[in-house]
């Protein structure tokens, strides 16, 4: 209340009154330094585990450190220039990442919305199905990877065996061995594992839409498509933005699934940025180079995040 009064007084006067100035001065004196110590643990943890490594990565990206030796050389921006101008594997990884992310994004968003529309009513059956769809989300991704690797096996895997059993052997593929489709096979597993999570966000978003709007549309004689287009979709946009943002970042960061299922192969066909920098750091022992990749990765994620925050803001619907 005190604060509001002050604002009114300041707003109402063309110059700050002596009363306001003295109150501000008093407040400055009242600054409680003890409170600073409350944020100190968080500040230390953030500095040690987030800010520190980020600064270290920025520094290491300018060196040729191998990750083991106690010494290294300063190489300027050559890690960056080499990566961006003379490293086809990095470029391929970036391309694979885009394919993977787009594949997951499109299918996961569309299908989780579709399933959410089907399961929006809180009936016992729907709650059961929501739990079933959500189940893969709670399974460890490495377990998911092992199971799907066996399922995808061209010789003993259940997918090709079922296709052959029903006379569709033409559709049986080398799911993880064919470099033209391997990245999409991985994207499908990512989609399978996380659709349930997105479904729940969409269901929550659908429940937040006032029923009166649907009743009004019904009275006006709107068709189902018109209702979806004019009511459901616009009011679901904030949820959709969260789903899109989350899916994009999750897909960009996908690592465990790829490492466990293909290791980035065959012929780098499933190498994505996160596995690329892992291989550079821990297999090739080029920590400096890997740090440069991490910085570029961080910039890409930052750009995507900023774009999505803007989208989120523009889609902020009030009703």
């Amino acid at each position, binding site marked *: 209340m005190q604060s509001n009064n002050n604002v009114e007084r300041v707003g109402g006067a063309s110059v700050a009154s002596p009363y306001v100035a003295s109150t501000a001065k008093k407040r400055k004196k009242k600054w409680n330094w003890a409170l600073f110590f409350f944020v100190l*643990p968080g500040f230390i943890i953030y500095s040690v585990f987030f800010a520190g490594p980020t600064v270290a990565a920025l520094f290491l990206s300018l060196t040729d450190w191998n990750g083991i030796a106690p010494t290294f050389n300063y190489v300027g921006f050559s890690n960056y220039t080499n990566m961006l101008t003379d490293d086809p594997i990095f470029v391929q990884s970036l391309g694979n990442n885009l394919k993977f992310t787009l594949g997951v994004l499109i299918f996961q968003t569309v299908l989780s919305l579709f399933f959410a529309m089907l399961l929006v009513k809180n009936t016992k059956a729907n709650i059961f199905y929501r739990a079933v769809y959500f189940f893969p989300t709670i399974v460890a991704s490495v377990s998911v990877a092992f199971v799907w690797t066996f399922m995808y096996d061209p010789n003993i895997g259940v997918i090709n065996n079922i296709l052959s059993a029903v006379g569709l052997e033409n559709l049986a593929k080398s799911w993880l061995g064919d470099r033209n489709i391997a990245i999409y096979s991985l994207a499908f597993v990512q989609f399978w594992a996380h659709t349930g999570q997105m479904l729940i966000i969409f269901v929550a978003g659908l429940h937040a839409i006032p029923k009166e709007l649907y009743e009004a549309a019904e009275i006006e004689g709107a068709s189902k498509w018109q209702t979806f287009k004019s009511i459901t979709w616009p009011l679901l946009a904030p949820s959709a933005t969260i789903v899109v943002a989350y899916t994009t970042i999750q897909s960009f960061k996908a690592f465990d699934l790829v490492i466990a299922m293909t290791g980035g*192969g065959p012929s780098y066909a499933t190498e994505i940025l996160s596995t690329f920098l892992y291989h550079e750091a821990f297999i090739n*022992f080029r920590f400096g180079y890997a740090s440069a990749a991490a910085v570029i990765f961080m910039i890409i994620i930052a750009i995507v995040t900023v774009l999505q925050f803007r989208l989120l803001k523009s889609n902020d619907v009030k009703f």
Partner: protein
Amino acid sequence: MKKQMLLLMMVVLLIGSVLAGCGNADETGGAESGDATTINFLHWRGEDTEAFNAIIEKFEEENPNINVEMNALPSDSYIANASATLLSGKGADVFASFPGSQFEALQESGAYVELGDQAFIDRFSENMLGAGQKDGKQLAVPYQLVYNIPVYNKGVFEELGLEPPKDWDGFLEVSQTLKDNGYDPILFAGDVSPSQFINPMVMNNQPSDEAFAQLETGEEKLTNDWFVKTLSQIKELNDKGYFQKDPLGTKKEGAAALFAQEKGAMLALGSYMMATVAEQNPDIEQGLLSPITVSEDEMKYEGIHTSTFMLGVNAKSEHQDEAMKFIEFLTKPEIASEYANATGQLLTVKDVEYDSPELTETAAWLDKKTLFQPRYTLSKEQVSKAIETAIQDVLSGVEPEEAAKKAQEEVDRAIK
């Protein structure tokens, strides 16, 4: 004011206790308790923990003043995790390392104590010690031995009247006979076989123990005839249908399962798979054979071996004498035999008695002329990966010349 001071003191105490909790346990515990010294043994073979525990128990009985603490890290992140602590001076006293690029990286950082003057060196087969040497110094002793050549089903070969082939034409004939009789001649694991099968394929096409190493100095190129010929031979095997369906999509476990089910006759992995296969199918009789890619009279090497699990003593250890004693104990023939038979591992130590048919079969290869795995002579993993990718490219339909050219470009980038 008093309240604020109290609050402040509480926060400071809280932070203090958290920071104290993060402190090094060594500061309170230390490596020595009473008269006993504790040494740390670090390796990546979690599956051998039980066998090692039994051996450590015996060691501690024999050396009551030394305790051994063992840690097993996952193999794929082993070197990254191990190296940081080893070089900090707080890591293991005795540690295992891989040959090749990982050994190179550690020795460059001065992680090893020289072992050349230790009496236990004489217990090893001399030709198996090379992987742990650098500039004439014995820095580590390879303890385990594997043969990176295909495992074959002796029963199937006998049934069809086949013998392990001695030249390339013979290898193609055997493969064709197997295929005609409904077997997948070669089971190829897309994730592992490219890095394994290349070794015996290349050993006689370029019969030099420095062929791969010279790629890093620029003296050899992957566009040279020997490598293109090797890729062409792999393509020939693929084109003739001697690999199972979709080899690149088949994982190691899948290929091993097909072999154990006796659907295929050769498994393009190595001797380290024999124990796993025997567990899955105890009736299968296994042997080792090499694809000889030249005529019989041109053959120089009969197979490929890798001496690995290289034991070393940390140069920063404060308990180097105790660490040496532990390695000395591990290399006693009776202890080595116990470890070998408990884990199914063939060892580089002499006079070891093996009690399983697989190990006995593998041990027979000790007398054959084998080449140390060429891939492990590379110090740069990118070069190894370029070779592996060339094979994957060929199996994906890329022409050998083109795949070799692409691989050489990758090598050029790695060594520039």
